[in-house]
């Protein structure tokens, strides 16, 4: 049952990808797309898709939109921070590797979390082991686990937890 659901979700996301790539919805394009997506979904039955493990509840959908907005804001902030550091003659840096904790269990959610952290101000995911994430931080504000978790992870985790659990 779980496996069948995974295959169907993978098929759906592949079909969407195919239609966006083709840019049309002509009947022959859709037919070829269905065939191709079905073959790949069968062959990669054990694999994940972006939709897998997504909780299809209204609150999850709302969280997804909020997440995108929050992410865009953080990405712009990150770039302004990079711009400030790079253009200042003194290079104000205080780098270090800190350890933070995440509550997320879903693999897709964790991958998105790691990618989001990498793209947000001054942080770069280096290693992920169990519930621990090791983060390179350009300007370490606090080396303690709890404080670093609150500063780096909490913002994204709030939305991703609603989306993936």
């Amino acid at each position: 049952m779980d496996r069948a659901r995974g295959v169907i979700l993978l098929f759906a996301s592949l079909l969407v990808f195919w239609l966006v790539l083709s840019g049309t919805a002509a009947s022959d394009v859709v037919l070829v797309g269905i065939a191709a997506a079905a073959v790949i979904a069968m062959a990669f039955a054990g694999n994940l898709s972006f939709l897998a493990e997504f909780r299809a509840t209204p609150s999850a959908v709302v969280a997804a939109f909020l997440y995108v907005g929050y992410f865009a804001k953080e990405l712009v902030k990150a770039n302004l921070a990079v711009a400030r550091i790079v253009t200042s003659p003194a290079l104000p840096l205080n780098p270090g590797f800190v350890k933070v904790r995440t509550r997320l269990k879903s693999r897709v959610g964790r991958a998105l979390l790691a990618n989001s952290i990498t793209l947000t101000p001054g942080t770069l995911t280096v290693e992920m082991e169990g519930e621990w994430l090791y983060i390179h931080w350009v300007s370490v504000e606090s080396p303690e686990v709890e404080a670093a978790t609150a500063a780096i992870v909490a913002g994204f985790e709030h939305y991703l937890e609603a989306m993936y659990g």
Partner: protein
Amino acid sequence: MIRRAAALALIAALGALLLPLLLGYHPDEALNLTACYYAERTAADLGAANIVTAIVVTYRGLDTLGEVTVLFLSAAVVGLVLARGRTATTGGRPRLPAGELLTTGSRLLAPLIMLLGIYIFVNGHLTPGGGFQGGAVIASGVLLLLLAEPGRRLGHRVIALVESLSGLAYVAIGVAGLVYAGGFLDNRILPIGTLGELASAGAIPVIYSLIGLKVGAEFSSMLANLSETEEL
């Protein structure tokens, strides 16, 4: 040192030979006769929008069959060379497993890469791309799986089956062109359709898809053979 000087002298001589070629090169102002024929006749004769595809699959289709054969031979020789005397596992150094980031990321991306490969070779007659590019993209998807799980053993029999079936179908379509249309690998055994649609250009999309599968299987078998070698 002598070796280096001799090599430099040879390079200098070769460079002196190439320099007049470069300086005396004047780009053509109009297409030559062959190219002109292809440019004017492709759309009407074959219904393919991508003229390079038309040349590769139809006008020079026999050459492409030869090329795919050469690729098959080199893949087979790679397998043969590496298989000969492959000793029982000598143990070797344990390889570092990939991190969770890479395994999750590759499992998310591999199906998309495969689908992109199919998109490229199915649309070979309309957009840039075709069987060779699509096959390479599919092999890249296999490569991503291998990177995420170094110890993974690929299904050699599946790869060999895809490879030989698509090769067989390719030759069968070629013969069908000989029987039902103008000649070997003639694409007009299927209706030519309207220029610019997916279901057009006769048998070209079918042939290019088969080439794509075959090339993808050949590259994948090269990758699999090299990845299963033991460390020395």
